[in-house]
């Protein structure tokens, strides 16, 4: 054994005389050294804590932070000790464990001191200490002293602030908050220690987690959830959400207030965005998700506070639309949910709210049935006097709002959220919007405008216009719409405004858009804008054009075209329309070119196919008993229907050229003739025009995309 100044100073001989294994098991020595080393480090940590508490007591923040960060490193060092001990096999430990007698790690008085000095509640720690016989004088003394937690709270008190103020979004990022964050990190590494220690015990004793029965285990497991600074954790997590009081209950969507998507819901947020771009949308306001929370907080009652604000906003809608709710001329509103995702059981939309006998006759006539259905429990369209009508309309509005809130907690919505891990407390916003009527007069109508052609990709407006109709009529396909260009003949100023808005939206979204709009008495309103769907060729054209217009970069353009897309071959080439007149034209809904004899019966198509004659099936509309004819025909033509018709859907599914909506009488006109059908352009020609097709060279856009694509490939190495 060495002696000299070094060993004297450190007491090395004494230190090395303190390891006294009780068995011959070799690993017992490691076990003792590790625990002794840990006890030494516990002593050091307590020493540091005393320094930090002292520094905090004198408002010396830099010194306090320095000490806490040193504590981080010390605790991390403990973890490393356990890494070594983990190499001890369970059977080695089993061999000397009986010799430990009643000795247990739980009895470490210094560890209790660490818990107390850091800030754990005194009573709990002392109870454990007494239970395991380690409530010695040191532990009891610690229990009476200030802890890190207490010292920090006192410091905040002196600084005239609180934990929650510290974590307000507007609070400065100063030294005090930095110290708070240091303390939180200390809590984290200490918790790591607890967990690491728990794992070591499981490992050394050789039991599976969860099956460990001894009180020691269950105690260790419970300690995993002990924290020194609970108020810091809580304030931090609150700070990520805006404090509840800052969120308004009802928000006008006129650009005067801006709020987050989480507060406004998707619908309200989208309208807010459109307003900010200066795009005309029907006036609206939103009951925020906080109003939803408030509603459930008050046992499903819309409080007076919320309702008063709703009435205030309703007045704004009346002023902006020039109509009156529940009186004449009548303002009707839609009430829509703003749930973050659409989910089963959620009520989506209630339309025509506010319809009463005070409304215009045509409105009452057309809209009363669905509205009565929407409010089975409410006297609807009963009142005949002015006062009664107004009351009726307000009752509808109140009921509609409540029903959308209620549907958030419907069983099906809840089940859906559970299955999809959507938190229950998100809540839904409700957006109330003035309705506009495209069927009001001859200067009204509805349409869909795609900012570029979704079939050819041409950078020209494309879409449908249906005069004197509501949006539902367009979707239902009950009437065949006119091409969008018709709007420019009928209402040139509205058309110009629409196109200008489309261009502005394209720039904002950096994408081609599909815009639903309504014109009411010559005034344009946008209802919805979303990214447009397209054919593959159109996707290529759009992507390249958008790059050249400076809206997207080349890698974005490449990502917008499916990686396996290849340019069309001559087989897809279209008939040169300038060279020959079509015998019929409709909407090309499924591309491709085919020739054959026209029949109007699926069975007959089958007969033709059986003898190897090419056949084209022409039908007024499509029903299921036509479908087997689709499987043998070269192409399908219908008299009625649009791009969502059954014929279109089935044809696209099986890759069959299809032209729909060719007009009444076409079947009779074409029956028995040999025709050529171009499913891209929607043209039907008499005769076989296979050779008249213009094998157009690839467009500049296609050539450009192919070049970018080859340039983006990693260089191939020649072997």
């Amino acid at each position: 054994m060495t002696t000299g100044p070094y060993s004297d100073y450190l007491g090395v001989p004494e230190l090395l005389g303190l390891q006294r294994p009780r068995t011959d098991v070799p690993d017992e020595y490691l076990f003792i050294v590790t625990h002794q080393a840990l006890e030494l480090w516990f002593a050091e940590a307590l020493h540091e804590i005393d320094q930090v508490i002292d520094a905090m007591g004198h408002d010396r923040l830099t010194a306090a932070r320095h000490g806490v960060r040193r504590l981080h490193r010390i605790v991390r060092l403990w973890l490393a000790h356990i890494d070594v001990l983990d190499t001890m096999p369970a059977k080695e430990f089993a061999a000397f464990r009986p010799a430990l007698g009643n000795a247990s790690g739980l009895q470490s008085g210094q560890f209790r001191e660490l818990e107390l000095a850091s800030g754990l509640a005194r009573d709990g720690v002392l109870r454990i200490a007494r239970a395991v016989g380690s409530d010695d004088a040191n532990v009891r003394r610690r229990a009476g002293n200030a802890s890190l937690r207490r010292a920090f709270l006192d410091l905040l008190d002196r600084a005239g602030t609180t934990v929650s103020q510290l974590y307000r979004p507007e609070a400065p990022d100063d030294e005090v908050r930095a110290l708070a964050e240091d303390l939180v990190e200390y809590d984290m590494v200490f918790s790591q220690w607890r967990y690491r220690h728990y794992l070591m015990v499981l490992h050394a004793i050789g039991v599976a987690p969860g099956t460990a029965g001894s009180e020691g285990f269950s105690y260790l497991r419970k300690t995993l959830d002990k924290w020194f600074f609970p108020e810091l954790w809580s304030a931090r997590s609150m700070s990520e959400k805006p404090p509840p009081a800052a969120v308004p209950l009802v928000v006008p969507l006129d650009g005067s207030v801006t709020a987050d998507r989480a507060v406004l819901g998707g619908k309200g947020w989208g309208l807010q965005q459109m307003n900010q771009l200066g795009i005309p949308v029907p006036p609206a306001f939103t009951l925020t998700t906080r109003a939803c929370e408030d509603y459930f907080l008050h046992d499903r009652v819309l409080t007076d506070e919320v309702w008063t604000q709703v009435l205030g906003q309703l007045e704004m809608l009346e002023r902006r639309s020039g109509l009156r709710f529940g009186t004449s001329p009548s303002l009707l509103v839609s009430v829509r949910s703003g749930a973050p995702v659409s989910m089963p059981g959620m009520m989506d939309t209630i339309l025509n709210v506010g319809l009463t006998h005070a409304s215009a006759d045509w409105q009452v006539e057309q809209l009363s049935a669905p509205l009565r259905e929407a409010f089975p429990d409410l006297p609807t369209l009963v009142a005949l006097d002015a006062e009664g009508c107004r009351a009726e309309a307000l009752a509808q509005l109140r009921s509609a709002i409540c029903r959308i809130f209620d549907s958030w907690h419907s069983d099906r919505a809840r089940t859906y959220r559970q299955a999809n891990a959507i938190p229950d407390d998100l809540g839904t916003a409700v957006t109330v919007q003035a309705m506009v009527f495209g069927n009001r007069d001859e200067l009204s109508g509805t349409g869909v405008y795609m900012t570029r052609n979704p079939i050819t990709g041409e950078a020209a407006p494309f879409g449908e216009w249906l005069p004197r109709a509501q949006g539902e009529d367009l979707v239902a396909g009950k009437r065949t719409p006119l091409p969008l260009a018709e709007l420019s003949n009928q209402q040139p100023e509205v058309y110009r405004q629409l196109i200008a808005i489309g261009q502005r939206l394209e720039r904002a979204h950096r994408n081609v858009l599909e815009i639903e709009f309504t014109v009411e008495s010559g005034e344009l309103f946008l209802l919805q804008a979303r990214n447009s769907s397209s054919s593959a060729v159109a996707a290529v054209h759009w992507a390249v054009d958008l790059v050249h217009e400076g809206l997207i970069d080349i890698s974005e353009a490449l990502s917008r075209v499916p990686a396996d897309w290849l340019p069309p071959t001559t087989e897809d080439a279209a008939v040169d329309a300038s060279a020959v007149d079509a015998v019929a034209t409709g909407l090309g809904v499924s591309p491709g070119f085919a020739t054959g004899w026209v029949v109007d019966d699926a069975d007959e198509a089958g007969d033709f196919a059986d003898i190897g004659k090419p056949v084209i099936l022409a039908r007024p509309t499509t029903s299921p008993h036509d479908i087997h004819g689709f499987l043998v025909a070269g192409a399908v033509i219908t008299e009625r229907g649009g791009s969502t018709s059954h014929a279109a859907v089935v044809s696209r599914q099986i890759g069959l050229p299809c032209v729909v909506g060719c007009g009444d009488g076409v079947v009779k006109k074409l029956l028995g003739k040999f025709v050529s059908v171009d499913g891209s352009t929607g043209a039907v020609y008499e005769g076989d025009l296979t050779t008249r097709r213009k094998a157009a060279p690839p467009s500049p856009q296609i050539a450009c995309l192919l070049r970018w694509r080859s340039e983006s490939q990693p260089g191939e190495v020649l072997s």
Partner: protein
Amino acid sequence: MTTTEEFDTAVLYSLLLKGRASTSSIAAAIGATEDATATLLEASAAKGLVLLRTGRISGWLLTPEGRAHVGDRIDTEKSAVDRATMGALYDDEFLRLNSRFKELCTHWQLKGGNVESELTRIHEANLVLLERFTTSAPRFARYVPRFVGAYDRFSGGDATALLQPMRESYHDVWLELHEDLLILLDRQREEGD
């Protein structure tokens, strides 16, 4: 459905809707085994009501006699069911759901987006609606397992179960249900269909 006669009618009715169909697809539609269905079809063929076509698209179809026979059955059914209630359901609910379903199909084809949540909503609404149709005409209950089957196959990853024609896809069953309602209620297909 218990008696042979009811099965018999179901077979003929199914053929009326489908136009031409294989034994297995009729079996699926009426909820009987393929063997039993084949027996029924052969018996009807012996009476001259149906015949088996071969060729590129082979299958059973109704003869003019078969068509007249099933026409009589439909007239009987028309007088038995509550057509006013069913008609109201058709106008108010089915047509709206029909538009949504077709939109969904188009969206899925053109955009290739995720349609599962919308399909789930439509499917759930559809099942509720079928239950109400069934109150008036119990036979409509047979659509339920067919829609559920197609829905489950689609949810299970079989992309053809939504739209592929003549494969008992959701769209196939939908088209039949629609045709069934049109015939029973003496309605015409809407223009956009």
